[in-house]
């Protein structure tokens, strides 16, 4: 069997394993879905009136629902990524991983199984969060092509952050560490254009917000879904996602291949 077909076959076997885990223990999926939904409701119904007014003369709560949704979608991705780090760290404590390492299989398939499983899980979360966003006043103007492009952008950032969280799960020596390490990621949509426009921020924060990877992703999503300007953000978002994916894939692979037995 060629390396590629071996990789595809073993990865899909491992994907089935991860999907079975999720189906059997769905509480994790619901928990990870719950966090962005709560933040969405909080920002639309508690802060939304005031924050909406800050968007411009005609700004109100419904306009803020539109503004905040791309940021909430990224919160969804980050929240699911935290779940990935936890489940990878948990998996590594299982004896079955040692068995996989002694089998003649595509070696990173344990990891690709987690990544693909998390991709499915995150896409389901994103769909659920989008439905709630529509219910609370999100009114996208996207045509079908723009919708597809938006889904592509979300899949891309999910893929990148999932590889990051797989690496974080592997580098953690305990499940607790794995649950804490991705925490700072949830701040990135706040320290970017997710909740308020960056030009309302003080210079130093604004500089960080403009150049961190989440902002171009959120701006691209906003442009695709709501028709605001995208500019160079699309390209920058793609580059960021590619760099994070490749870097974290190599990192995760190296971590998995090292001798863990002490």
């Amino acid at each position, binding site marked *: 069997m060629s390396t590629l077909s071996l990789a595809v076959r073993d990865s899909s076997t491992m994907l089935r*394993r991860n999907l079975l885990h999720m189906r059997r223990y769905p509480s994790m999926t619901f928990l990870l879905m719950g966090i962005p939904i709560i933040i969405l409701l909080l920002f639309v119904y508690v802060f939304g009136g005031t924050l909406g007014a800050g968007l411009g003369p005609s700004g109100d709560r419904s306009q803020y629902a539109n503004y905040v949704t791309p940021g909430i979608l990224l919160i969804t991705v980050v929240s699911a990524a935290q779940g990935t780090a936890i489940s990878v760290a948990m998996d590594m404590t299982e004896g079955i991983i040692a068995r996989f390492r002694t089998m003649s299989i595509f070696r990173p398939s344990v990891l690709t199984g987690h990544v693909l499983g998390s991709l499915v899980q995150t896409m389901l979360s994103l769909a659920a969060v989008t439905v709630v966003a529509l219910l609370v006043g999100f009114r996208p103007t996207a045509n079908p092509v723009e919708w597809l492009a938006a889904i592509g952008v979300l899949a891309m950032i999910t893929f990148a952050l999932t590889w990051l969280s797989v690496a974080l799960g592997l580098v953690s020596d305990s499940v607790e560490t794995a649950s804490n390490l991705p925490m700072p990621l949830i701040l990135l949509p706040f320290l970017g254009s997710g909740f308020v426009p960056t030009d309302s921020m003080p210079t130093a924060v604004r500089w960080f917000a403009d150049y961190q990877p989440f902002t171009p992703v959120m701006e691209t999503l906003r442009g695709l879904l709501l028709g605001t300007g995208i500019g160079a953000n699309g390209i920058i978002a793609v580059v960021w996602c590619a760099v994070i994916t490749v870097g974290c894939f190599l990192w995760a692979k190296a971590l998995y291949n090292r001798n863990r037995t002490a």
Partner: protein
Amino acid sequence: MTSSMNPAIVATDLRKSYGDKVVLNGIDLMITEGTIFALLGPNGAGKTTTVQILSTLIDADGGNARVFGHDLTREPDAVRALIGVTGQFSAVDNLLTGRENLILMADLCHLDRAAGRRRIADLLDQFDLTEAAGKPVSTYSGGMRRRLDLAMTLVGEPRVIFLDEPTTGLDPRSRRAMWHIIRALAAEGVTILLTTQYLEEADQLADRVAFLDHGRLIAEGTPRELKRLIPGGHVVLQFADQEGLDSAARTFDAATRDDAALTLQVPSDGGVGSLRALLDQLDSASISVSGLSVHTPDLDDVFLTLTGQPDTRAGRPDHERAPAR
């Protein structure tokens, strides 16, 4: 077990240290195809490390090893295709059912669907797991878990199986069931390297036994050869009266008598043949014996004799040891 048979595992001068703790201090192994080889030793002797190296889980610091001619470090995948490992800690997926675990293995061994199904049905049946197949593994007992673990190892029909303490923590009945399975595997021509702390287990199962102590092999041979390393096999005859003891003592020259206990200790290897000869001698001399007990040196005696003291040394730091020759 002739030397003309294929070596399944050949290891030369395996070394491994963690920091300044030497775990393996130059191990040589030659395991013939189709035999059961037992690696015996106390906790911390390096048994698990040896298995981890030979099963490609970790790299040795020095030395080399081959499995059916494939070098462990240069051709790990060729080795992995030939071996199966059942480790000390159960290598099963606790979130899946028993059958799902086996399906996972069949898929990873690239069996086609029909062949995989047949193999899984056979293994479930053979390991008495058919009834529990649909239940999550987290509900299994220790013995069931260990059986499933071994069944998973067998899905790919490996030619070499590593069993790291396969019966540790099992009740006597499960232990015997596991022994039965291991013997059946060897009968099919599978080569088995097992580690154990139970000398009886090695005695029961193994064609050859090696004693591992502080990262070195201190003795190797068949259980019989090893037992011959130490003296002490004897039969104790118990008599009802002094007269019986006297006449028996006249019959068996080499015996040592204990007048107070009315017993006679006759040197013997404890085998059936020598026992029969002994009884025949008693019969023909018309000596009546009120009791008889056989004392054979067991591997415990061998191990304790070889290591010089009970295995309380297991926790002793390595740097206190005498320098290696």
